[in-house]
């Protein structure tokens, strides 16, 4: 069955080009210039899908972006995309479309039985049932409900499309290339402004593309060719303005052949010429395939050369639909106009009469018939007749597209003259033009476009007056008259009078919402799900508001409208994400030694944004094997580790010492030049912010190091203090994290190793004692030698300019080869520090105080420091606080796990325990598993046997509480 036939001539289709495509497995043909929708109609596919809830047969309602019914799953496998409106898809060779929500096919759909239960499935149905019989009964029902929900099917495979983003700055962005947008772009372009004109259709022209007049087509082509000749004007097609954000940022999603190009535009001015959307009429069975918006019928006729087979009815409450009636009549279709208004006036009546069109005033539609396609229309009112027809063109008036202004937080306001909402205003530097203001009419649009552009130019300070736009020589606009919106009293069977076609929301549902007190537009929307489908209520919103307002006895303006949110139309998420996905999701930070690690058997691990050498192949093939060997290397010989990721900050100025003295809990004012000191800094609230070693390079210069994780935080914090609060301090800070590489030479043989590597530089205990620092010239650069130890062994850190790091590293490895020096990685580094009892990330978790970490003694008594006051708050000083302890495993056959919860031996194992394990390692020194953790009361309980519970694996182990410093408590090795 077919409603339309294709004309042999006319339209904008290219009959010389035949395009093959697949629809539900069948091979069909269309022409160049077709959309999927027009090609399907040309192939007699009037019924193209089933509705969401009741599985009613549906065909195309529109010819545009507002399409609620004609949605398809496109492509296969990695390119499969659900819910694509066929009206917006240019037909392309090999395109493959599948209908949705119907099984086995749209014309024979077994789920249509849902329709029989219609009265049950009204608004609010789900809230009233599936409650019992048991507490969690919903868990039984939900899978059935979920299976029935959803439209198309998403594919789990990887997306092979390539999406990208582009950033632009324009004097003027024009949204929409209809007559208003074209005029605006012409004027702004002629004035020399940098203009971007974005059009969602595949051609520029907007409503002009649906006209049959040669005059208008000439005007359109002149405008387009002039725009394309202007170097300062960029035009985009298949590019939808999707969102308008603070700071006049507008996003435009452009369809490219292999993906989307997402434009992020910072626009100095924006002209919104987004047009208007036609509303359907609300009557019983208004959803049959073959019932279409009047403007869509006109578009299919004039643009796609599709004409109803023999007879059409046009039903309208306003003047605009007459253009459709005239076009149909001129194409030889028998046309009847059901005119809802009691006594329409205007010159269209005479023109209709001349074309032999019957006009039935004060006549509405009572019902329609036709199983899978419209067959018959039953009129009611002054002319209660039944008419057989193929197509019913409906117009309930026009709704300006107020979305973009709504994105800016500007509420739409009701304009009773057009029975619709218009923008409530515009942000500074934004302007509107044409139908989106409620100015319906071709010439009005052109004039609007011109004046909006002039206003935008003035705002941008363009003084050159551009040549005015030539008006197309067509007759003056016909005034727009509209009757009332839909009223419930006019609707014979509200249960089958659809308002939101895609979500199957009927007039009856609005009635139910009203009865149950869901009066406000937001409640109505949420209770009935109106406007929440992929079309976001483009055709349904205003009709629903009119009915609800009617039920409440108020006007639609008082009822108000819901807020339109971005995006304007469903937007491919890949377009928003662009290239910053997968491997490129976040930047990878690499140490200056990265390439060496990569070429020498390192396995890497992510640490925040950093990729760090985790362990090396020389020590083993798994981290568990390797780190133990690497630890032994450091404890017995000498190892080399990359510590370049540490935050490194240069602090300079006459007040540098005073500054650090304020920031750190311990004193830095008297730190001698050539010495380093371990420091801890607190936040204002008295909680530990970070720790690290800071060296005094000169009277006025310090070299501050931070943990890897907090480097950025500490840098900003220091800048904040200096710039915002202590501007009187003469200090500058500069981050050297990326400028310097660092390596730790650790182990009893580390001094020997340095002596081999740096001959002529005195690294003896006298020349470079523990915590000693010196800058030494070497190989044409300067090295900073610091006798620091994270492992507890005799150890040094050598820092150098980043581009020198690899050669220095290789040099040390080569020079110290006789000592069997080897690299060691992050896992060993972290394990060595556990043995030594150094706190790190898991202990520095923003919850622990200085005392919790066993560092309370560091806090200076005399001098003030940040956090000094609030660290003394009651609960921070409570004796029952948890503090840092060492833990030894007493049951060697069992496993010790990080994240275990600690209990006293006599405790019941429940609740929050008395602490937890932060970090675990095998101790090569003690030959057992050890851990660091926090335990209530801390060292008071040293020597006690406690329990670590890991209920996630049903495990409990016995532990002994010991000092967190497992090795070399006297620091003999450090000072060796």
């Amino acid at each position, binding site marked *: 069955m077919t409603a339309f036939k294709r004309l042999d001539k006319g339209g904008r289709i290219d009959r010389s080009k035949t395009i093959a495509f697949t629809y539900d497995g069948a091979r069909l043909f269309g022409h160049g210039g077709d959309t999927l929708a027009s090609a399907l109609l040309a192939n007699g596919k009037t019924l193209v899908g089933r509705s969401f809830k009741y599985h009613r047969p549906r065909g195309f309602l529109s010819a545009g972006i507002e399409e609620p019914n004609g949605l398809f799953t496109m492509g296969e496998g990695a390119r499969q995309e659900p819910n694509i409106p066929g009206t917006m898809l240019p037909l392309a060779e090999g395109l493959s479309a599948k209908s949705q929500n119907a099984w086995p096919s749209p014309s024979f759909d077994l789920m249509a039985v849902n329709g029989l239960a219609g009265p049950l499935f009204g608004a609010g149905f789900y809230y009233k049932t599936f409650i019992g019989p048991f507490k969690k009964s919903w868990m039984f029902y939900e899978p059935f409900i979920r299976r029935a929900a959803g439209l198309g099917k998403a594919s789990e495979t990887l997306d092979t499309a390539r999406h990208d983003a582009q950033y632009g700055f324009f004097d003027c962005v024009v949204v929409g290339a209809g007559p208003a947008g074209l005029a605006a772009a012409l004027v702004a372009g002629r004035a020399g402004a940098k203009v971007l004109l974005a059009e969602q259709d595949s051609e520029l022209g907007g409503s002009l593309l649906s006209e049959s007049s040669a005059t208008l087509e000439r005007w359109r082509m002149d405008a387009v060719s002039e725009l394309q000749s202007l170097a300062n004007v960029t035009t985009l097609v298949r590019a939808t303005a999707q969102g308008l*954000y*603070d*700071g006049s*940022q507008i996003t435009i999603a452009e369809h490219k052949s292999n993906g989307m190009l997402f434009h992020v535009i*910072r626009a100095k001015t924006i002209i919104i010429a987004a047009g208007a959307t036609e509303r359907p009429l609300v009557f019983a069975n208004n959803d049959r395939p073959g019932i279409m918006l009047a403007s869509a019928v006109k578009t299919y006729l004039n643009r796609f050369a599709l004409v109803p087979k023999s007879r059409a009815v046009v039903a309208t409450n306003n003047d605009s639909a007459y253009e459709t009636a005239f076009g149909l009549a001129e194409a030889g279709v028998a046309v009847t106009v059901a005119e809802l208004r009691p006594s329409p006036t205007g010159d269209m009546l005479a023109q209709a009469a001349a074309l032999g069109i019957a006009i039935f005033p004060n006549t509405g539609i009572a019902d329609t018939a036709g199983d899978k396609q419209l067959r018959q229309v039953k009129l009611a009112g002054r002319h209660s007749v039944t008419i057989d027809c193929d197509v019913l063109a409906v117009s309930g008036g026009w709704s300006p597209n107020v979305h973009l202004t709504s994105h800016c*937080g500007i509420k739409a306001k009701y304009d009773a003259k057009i029975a619709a909402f218009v923008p409530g205003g515009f942000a500074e530097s934004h302007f509107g033009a044409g139908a989106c203001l409620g100015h319906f009419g071709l010439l009005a649009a052109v004039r609007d476009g011109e004046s909006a552009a002039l206003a935008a130019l003035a705002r941008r300070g363009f003084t050159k007056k551009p040549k005015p736009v030539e008006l197309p020589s067509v007759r003056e606009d016909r005034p727009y008259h509209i009757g009332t919106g839909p009223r419930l009293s006019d609707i014979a069977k509200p249960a089958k009078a659809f308002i939101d076609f895609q979500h199957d929301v009927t007039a009856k549902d609005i009635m139910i919402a009203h009865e149950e007190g869901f009066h406000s537009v937001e409640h109505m929307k949420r209770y009935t799900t109106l406007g929440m489908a992929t079309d976001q209520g483009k055709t349904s919103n205003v009709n629903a508001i009119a009915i609800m307002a009617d039920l409440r006895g108020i006007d639609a303006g008082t009822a108000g409208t819901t807020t339109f949110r971005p995006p304007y139309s469903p937007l491919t998420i890949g377009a928003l994400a662009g290239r910053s996905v997968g491997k490129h999701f976040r930047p990878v930070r690499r140490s200056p030694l990265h390439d060496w690690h990569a070429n020498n058997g390192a396995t890497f691990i992510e640490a925040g944004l950093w990729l760090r050498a985790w362990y090396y192949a020389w020590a083993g093939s798994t981290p568990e094997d390797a780190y133990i060997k690497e630890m032994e290397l450091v404890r017995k010989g000498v190892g080399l580790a990359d510590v370049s990721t540490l935050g490194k900050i240069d602090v300079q100025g006459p007040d540098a010492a005073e500054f650090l003295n*304020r920031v750190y809990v311990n004193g830095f004012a008297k730190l001698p030049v050539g010495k380093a000191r371990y420091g801890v800094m607190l936040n*204002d*609230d008295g909680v530990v912010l970070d720790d690290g070693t800071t060296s005094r390079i000169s009277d006025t210069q310090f070299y501050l190091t931070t943990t890897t994780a907090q480097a950025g935080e500490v840098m*900003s914090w220091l*800048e*904040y203090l200096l*710039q*915002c*609060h*202590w501007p009187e301090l003469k200090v500058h800070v500069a981050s050297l994290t990326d400028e310097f590489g660092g390596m730790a030479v650790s182990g009893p043989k580390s001094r020997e190793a340095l002596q081999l590597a740096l001959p002529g530089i005195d690294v003896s205990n006298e020349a470079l004692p523990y915590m000693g620092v010196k800058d030494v010239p070497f190989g044409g650069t300067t090295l900073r030698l610091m006798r620091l130890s994270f492992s507890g062994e005799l150890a040094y850190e050598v820092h150098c300019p980043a581009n020198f790091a690899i050669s220095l590293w290789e040099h040390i490895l080569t020079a110290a080869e006789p000592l069997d020096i080897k690299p060691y990685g992050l896992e060993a580094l972290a394990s060595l520090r556990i043995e030594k009892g150094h706190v790190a990330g898991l202990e520095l978790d923003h919850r622990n105080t200085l005392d919790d970490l066993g560092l309370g003694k560091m806090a200076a008594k005399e001098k*003030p420091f*940040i956090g*000094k*006051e*609030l660290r*003394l*708050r009651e609960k921070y000083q409570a004796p029952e606080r948890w503090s840092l302890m060492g833990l030894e495993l007493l049951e060697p056959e069992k496993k010790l796990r990080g994240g275990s919860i600690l209990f006293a031996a006599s405790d019941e194992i429940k609740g929050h325990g008395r602490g937890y394990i932060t970090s675990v390692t095998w101790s090569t020194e003690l030959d057992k598993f050890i851990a660091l953790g926090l335990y209530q009361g801390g060292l008071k309980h040293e020597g006690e046997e406690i329990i670590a519970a890991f209920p996630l694996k049903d495990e409990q182990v016995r532990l002994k509480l010991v000092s967190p410093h497992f090795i070399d408590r006297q620091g003999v090795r450090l000072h060796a």
Partner: protein
Amino acid sequence: MRLPCPHCGERDVSEFRYGGDATRVRPAHGTGDLKAWHDYTFTFENPKGPHTEYWQHVLGCRQWFKLSRNTATNEIAGVVE
């Protein structure tokens, strides 16, 4: 949103780091008044309307500055000296 960095000019908000209510007066360093530190550290004006706040151009010149912005509309009045 775009913010006027006093050094670099107008830039995207994503280049900046927010620093909170700038009308709070930091107690003088070393003030032992617990209440003053508590109020400074933990309470905020948080008005619905004009707000003076700290921002840092963290992915730019790294300058901290005070900005006047309306929290009800995100309109920016400008940098506060």
